[in-house]
C-alpha cells in the first residue's frame, strides 16, 4: 500500500469506525434480532421465522404496507414536481426571488416535532386555517369547490391526504439541489433553443428536463429511500396512525409502536427488515426504469459499464 492510500485510509478511519459501530453493527444486530423474541430485558429467545410469519397475518402491518406504498407512490412524484417547478420559477434573478427561495427552504428547517404540532393546528377541522381558507367563498358550510370541508383527522382518505400535504412543504433540500443544477446548465443550450425559435414548453421538454435528468434521477431514488421513514413524525404527532383502525398507520409507526410501546423488539426488527426489503424493491424498480429510459436515449444519463 503506497503512502497516498495509507493517508487516505487514515483520514477515512474516524468515519469508517463510526459507520461500522453506529450503523453497520446495529443493522446486523437488528437483522439477527428479527429471528428472536426479545424485550431487551429478559433473555432473547430464538424463534426462527415466527416473526415473519406473524407479519403476514398482522392486520396493522398489512394496512401499513398498503399505506406506505401508496404514500410513496403519491408523495415522491408530487414532491419532485413541486421542487422542480419552484426551482425553475425561482432560478432567475428577480425581485423577491431570494426571499421566495428562503421561504421554500424554511419549513425543512423547523424541527420535525414542532412541524407536526403546527400542522395539528393547521389541519384542525374547525379552527384550522386550512379549512378556514377552503371555506372562503363557499356557502352553507361548503368549500369554494362546493364540497364539504375535508375532515383531516377523522376521515381515512382525508387523513392520508393530510399526511401527503404535510410532506409537500419539506422539499427544501430537493429544491436547492435542482436550483443549483439548473444554474449550472450552460446558457448556450438555452440560446441555441432561442435561436431556433423554441417556445417555453419546448425548452422545458427538450432542453431543461433532459439536461436535469441525471440529477432528477438521483433525487427520485433518494426521496424514495427516505419516504418510508418520512411519514413517521406526522403520523405520530398529528394522526396517531388513525382514524382507527389503521388509516394512517405506516410501517415506521408500526415499528415504533411494536418496539417502544409493546416492547416487542424482535418483531419490530422484522418490521424493519420488511421496510428495508420494500425500499430496496422500490429503488430497484426505479433503477431499472431509469436504465431503460437512459439507454433509449431520452435523457442525458449515460449507462456505462466497466471497461467501456
Amino acid at each position, binding site marked *: 500500500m503506497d503512502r497516498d492510500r495509507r493517508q487516505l485510509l487514515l483520514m477515512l478511519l474516524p468515519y469508517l469506525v463510526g459507520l461500522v459501530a453506529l450503523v453497520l453493527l446495529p443493522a446486523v444486530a437488528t437483522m439477527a434480532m428479527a429471528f428472536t423474541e426479545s424485550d431487551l430485558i429478559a433473555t432473547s429467545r430464538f424463534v426462527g421465522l415466527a416473526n415473519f410469519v406473524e407479519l403476514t397475518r398482522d392486520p396493522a402491518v398489512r394496512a401499513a404496507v398498503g399505506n406506505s406504498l401508496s404514500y410513496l407512490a403519491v408523495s415522491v412524484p408530487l414532491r419532485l414536481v413541486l421542487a422542480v417547478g419552484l426551482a425553475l420559477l425561482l432560478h432567475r434573478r428577480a425581485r423577491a426571488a431570494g426571499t421566495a427561495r428562503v421561504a421554500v427552504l424554511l419549513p425543512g428547517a423547523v424541527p420535525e416535532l414542532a412541524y407536526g404540532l403546527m400542522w395539528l393546528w393547521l389541519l384542525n377541522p374547525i379552527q384550522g386555517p386550512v379549512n378556514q381558507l377552503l371555506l372562503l367563498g363557499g356557502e352553507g358550510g361548503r368549500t369554494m369547490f362546493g364540497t364539504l370541508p375535508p375532515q383531516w383527522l377523522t376521515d381515512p382518505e382525508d387523513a392520508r391526504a393530510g399526511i401527503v400535504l404535510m410532506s409537500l412543504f419539506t422539499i427544501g433540500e430537493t429544491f436547492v439541489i435542482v436550483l443549483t443544477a439548473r444554474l449550472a446548465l*450552460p446558457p*448556450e*443550450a438555452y*440560446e*441555441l*433553443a*432561442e*435561436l*431556433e*425559435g*423554441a417556445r417555453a414548453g*419546448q425548452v422545458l421538454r*427538450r*432542453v431543461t428536463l*433532459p*439536461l436535469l*435528468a441525471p440529477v432528477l434521477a438521483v433525487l427520485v431514488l433518494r426521496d424514495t429511500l427516505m419516504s418510508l421513514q418520512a411519514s413517521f413524525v406526522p403520523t405520530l404527532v398529528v394522526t396517531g396512525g388513525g382514524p382507527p383502525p389503521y388509516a394512517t398507520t405506516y410501517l415506521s409507526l408500526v415499528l415504533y409502536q411494536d418496539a417502544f410501546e409493546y416492547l416487542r423488539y424482535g418483531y419490530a426488527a422484522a418490521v424493519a427488515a420488511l421496510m428495508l426489503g420494500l425500499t430496496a424493491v422500490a429503488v430497484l424498480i426505479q433503477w431499472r426504469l431509469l436504465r431503460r429510459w437512459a439507454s433509449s*436515449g*431520452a*435523457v*442525458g444519463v*449515460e449507462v456505462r459499464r466497466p471497461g467501456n
Partner: protein
Amino acid sequence: MTAGLRLRGVSLSRGAVTALRGIDLAVPRGELLVVLGPSGAGKSSLLRAIAGLDPVTAGTVAIGGRDVTAQRPGQRNVSMVFQNHSLLPHLTVADNIAFGDRIRGAGHRAAAARAAQAAATVGCQDLLARRPHQLSGGERQRVALARALVREPDVFLLDEPLANLDAELRLRMRTEIRAVHDRLGTTTVYVTHDQSEAMALGDRIAVLRDGRFEQVGTPDEVWRQPRTRHVAAFVGAPGMNLLPGDGPLTLPGGPATGVELGVRPEHVTLGGTPPDPLGEVERVEVLGEDALVHLTVGGHPLLARVPAAARPAPGDRVGIGVAAEHLHVFDTATGERVPQPTAAGRAG
C-alpha cells in the same frame, strides 16, 4: 452590393458596461467577415446583437434587407456556433443537427434526412449515432457546424469556434470552415482573437476595440495599411514595432515629433552599416525557418524577424535598417495613421 447583413449605429449596453458603441457595418451576401479583437473588445456582444440574444440599446440590424431589430432571435433565421456547449449532451449527433427542424415542427423522417445531408456537408456523416461525449473536440465543432448549417441561415455566426482546439486541429478546421463557406456561400460573421485565423479565413477583417471598429478591410489592407496603432500592434505575429518619431529610427525627412513610427518585425533588416543605428541583441528565439530577435535600440525594445541561418547572437551589436516604404506613421495623440508620400530611400 446585395444586402447580406447591415448594422447601423448599433450600440449595446448592459448595466453600466457599454459593449458596442455605434457600430456601422455592411456585410455583402456571401461574404465571410472576420471580427478580430482582444478579449473584452465586444466581439461576442456584436454577434449577440446580430442574433438578437441581447437587445441593442440603439441602432438597427437588417438581414437580407429586412429590419430585424425588433424581432426575436428565432425569427431572424440566423444560426450560431459557440466556443463551447454548441451541442446538447443528451441528444445524438443526428438529433442535435435535427433539433431546430424538430422545434419548428418538421417530421422526424424529414428532419433526419436533412440532418444526414448537413452532416455530409461537413464530413461528419459517420458520427450520426454518437453522443457528444463520445466525440473529440474537433468532431464536436464539426457537428456544431452541421447543426448551424442545416437551417440554411441567412447569416451564420461563429463565436471563436476553434478556440478550444489544439493548434494542429485549429489549422485543419479553419481550412474546412473556409471550404464549407465557399461551397455554401452563406453570409458569415466569424469572431476570433487569433489574428492568424482572421488573416487566413476572412474575405475582410473588422478589427474591433472597445466596442468600435478601428478598421474594416481585406486582410491585405489591414496588414499593409493599418489605420491605427492598435491595429498595427494587434495584427501580425508578432505585431508591429512602435517607436517614437524622434527616437532611433527617423523618417527620411529627419526626426519628427508628435508621431510614432511603426515597422513590422519582418521588415527590420540586421547587419547594416552606419548611418544605420546600432542595436544590442537581448534574446533570440528560433522559430524554425525564421528567428525572432529581441533588440534594444536607443533604449527602446525592437523585434526583428530574420532568417534563422542569419541570426545574430545575444550580446551582438548590429546595425538596424528599415526601408522607408515599410515605415508606418501614426499620430501619437489620436493613434491614427498619418498618410506618407511614398518615398524611396532608407530610413536611418
